[in-house]
């Protein structure tokens, strides 16, 4: 029993490394916020562009969305971090992680919002156009607000799944929660920092998971 607590809940180790893991919490939260904002905004814009049905443009959007949804994010992260410097683009590990995950989320968000746009009844377009609203106005004032409401549950779930992947930053040395915890673990030769990291993830993500559950019931009721 005491060897268990020495390994996973060693108070000396916890006290020593708590401050650096707390810094990691800040990094994880900052990254998550940036990734969600960028991913959702870019994904929504791409879905809107796609609704104009310009062949070539739609083709590139679909190719982007499919590739970024198909590849494991870790592959993209390693490729960007170790590959880009060879062509003269040197980015910090933080920036690489941010860009890759934001683009992955954008790819999923594009598909999700697009599904919402196409699921909006044709009669909504016709009613708006019949009162003189233009295509873009109809999209912005009538269709998109309904589409976004419809897709809030899947979008929230996807956003949570992808922000959790910030933990992948460890492999390129991002000082997020897991990055700080693994460093502390190797210095202290003790798993307690990882315990603390797990606690930190639960504290950050559990409320989001609960929120998504609430959104799901709320918006599925509204849609019915």
């Amino acid at each position, binding site marked *: 029993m005491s060897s268990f607590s020495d390994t996973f809940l060693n108070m000396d180790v916890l006290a020593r490394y708590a401050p650096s893991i707390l810094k990691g919490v800040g990094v994880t939260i900052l990254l998550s916020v940036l990734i969600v904002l960028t991913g959702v905004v870019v994904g929504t814009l791409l879905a809107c562009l796609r609704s104009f049905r310009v062949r070539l443009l739609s083709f590139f959007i679909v190719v982007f969305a499919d590739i970024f949804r198909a590849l494991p994010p870790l592959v993209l992260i390693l490729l960007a971090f170790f590959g880009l410097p060879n062509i003269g683009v040197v980015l910090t590990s933080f920036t690489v992680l941010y860009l890759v995950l934001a683009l992955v989320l954008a790819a999923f968000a594009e598909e999700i919002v697009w599904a919402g746009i196409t699921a909006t*009844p044709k*009669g*909504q377009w*016709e*009613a*708006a*156009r*019949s*009162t*003189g*609203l*233009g295509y873009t*106005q109809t999209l912005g*004032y*009538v269709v998109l*607000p*309904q589409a976004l*409401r419809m897709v809030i549950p899947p979008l929230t779930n996807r956003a949570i799944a992808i922000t959790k992947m910030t933990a992948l930053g460890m492999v390129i040395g991002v000082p997020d929660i897991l990055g700080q915890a693994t460093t502390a673990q190797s210095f202290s030769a003790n798993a307690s920092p990882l315990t603390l990291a797990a606690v930190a993830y639960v504290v950050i993500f559990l409320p989001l998971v609960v929120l998504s559950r609430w959104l799901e019931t709320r918006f599925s009721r509204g849609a019915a």
Partner: protein
Amino acid sequence: MITDRPTLELRGLHKSFGADPILRGIDLSVARGEMVFVLGPSGSGKSTMLRCCNRLEEPDSGEIFVEGKPITGTGVDLNGMRQRIGMVFQSFNLYPHLTALGNVTLAMRRVQKKPRAEAETRALDALDRVGLKAKADSYPAQLSGGQQQRVAIARAMALEPSVMLFDEPTSALDPELVGDVLAVMREVRAEGMAMLVVSHEMKFAREAADRVVFVDGGVIVEQGTPEEVFERPREARTRAFLGRISE
């Protein structure tokens, strides 16, 4: 000049979907303050004809004039034109995320660029005329079908069109809610609008229509006053249709 032209005028309207000819030369005019009813079997092209009138469908050939001005062909300001032609749909098509007031003000604010206060004053006035001023802050989901349809009529009327198109405005309503909508349509006509109505409300057509048009196979088979068409139909196809629906 403009005054002696009908408010809405269709000349030689043709429309096909793929190889199927749906409209095969429709000539029709509706004067100011006139309510014209369109009857015809399912699939005869009634909705298509109506939808050509504000170019939700693009006619293949033929011309349409509103207040004497052509609205077909190229170089027409589509969105400007559509504000002079209100449309009411079978399924209401209210915007579910906006209140009744929001539904009515949207086009006034975004297309006509009226300031918020002015748009709201006019919208409340329009809602008042359909008897729903008290429901201005309700969302469509909180309204009955009949109330939703009246809000939809207010939404179209608030833009002060000169033509109103109705595509089966009461077909989706419970029978006890139909009367309120028809009452509002009488009001609309009293305001001097030219009205083109596709509907199966025969009783209402008899009482309120100035003219009844029977469409079948993409052409106008026969038209006249309700009395003429209902009591003394000249064409066999009209008689057959009326016989079928009165059963």
